[in-house]
């Protein structure tokens, strides 16, 4: 069978997509999560186009290298996906891609939670305003 290559991506050394998007923009979802056991904080933002596709993503993470790498990878992975596709990203995939050791698995979980929080925020912002129910004739 095929050898499983562990891609030691340099998300640790050269994280991608560090920064911020305009949290007040209607098509931007912001997720802010924390890991109480280690005190890491992670902010992940997505910009979604009118077709429901994620066109941009940024993150800011204060924590260990594995947390930074996990969120960097997460922003790479959500780009180009629809909101529903991005919701399917699992922490186990992130951990596998980064070859995270067992003690750092919670970092990938944090990244998964950050993605979900950002997408939930985006969806909330898209909720149409409640209108008066139309009276039936």
């Amino acid at each position, binding site marked *: 069978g095929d050898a499983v290559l562990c891609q030691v991506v340099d998300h640790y050394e050269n994280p991608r997509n560090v920064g911020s998007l305009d949290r007040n923009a209607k098509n931007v979802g912001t997720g*802010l*999560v924390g890991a*109480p*056991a280690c005190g890491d904080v992670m*902010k992940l933002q997505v910009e979604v186009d009118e077709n429901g596709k994620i066109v941009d993503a940024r993150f*800011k993470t*204060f924590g260990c290298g594995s947390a930074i790498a996990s969120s960097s990878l997460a922003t790479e992975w959500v780009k180009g996906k629809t909101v529903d596709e991005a919701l399917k990203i699992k922490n186990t995939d992130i951990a596998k891609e980064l070859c995270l050791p067992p003690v750092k698995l*919670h970092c990938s979980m*944090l990244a998964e939670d950050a993605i979900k*929080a950002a997408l939930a925020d985006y969806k909330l912002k898209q909720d149409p305003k409640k209108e008066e129910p139309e009276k039936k004739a």
Partner: protein
Amino acid sequence: RALQPPGPRPDLFRLMDCDRSFRLDAQQLQRRFRSLQRAVHPDRFGQRPPKEQYYSEQHSSLINKAYRTLLNPLSRGLYLLELNGVEPAQETDCDADSAFLTEIMEINEKLAEPKNQDSLEEIETLIKVKQEELTKEVTAAFERDDLQEAKKLLAKMKYFANLEDKLKNKKIPS
């Protein structure tokens, strides 16, 4: 009369002759630490058989660990939770804690900017004040036996402990 090894799973509070409580007399702890180290320090066992020398190292290590754990409010609180069978917080903090996490994020961002000594001192003061507030709240929570509240507050303290470490690293001249 030969030195014996430390017992299994020692109670660090008992070892340091302190009540099993979040309230702690730091001076009493320090006195106890010094007197225990005087008794078991490996330097005093230099002429003893190797086994006893080894045991004295174990005792000395254990006393160091107990002292460090009990002296620091965060580690003391977490240890107390452990003794009471309460796991420290593991679940990701999100929506409910949004205001708190935003604050932590902002302080982290301020720390990350290259700054002058004055603004570093401002941040240091802010962190200290927050830690003192939280320590008071944790004390109150333990006093009324509200372990779940103590657990939540100790989780917040962890974020500030990290900030404190980062700030210390910033202050070390490169």
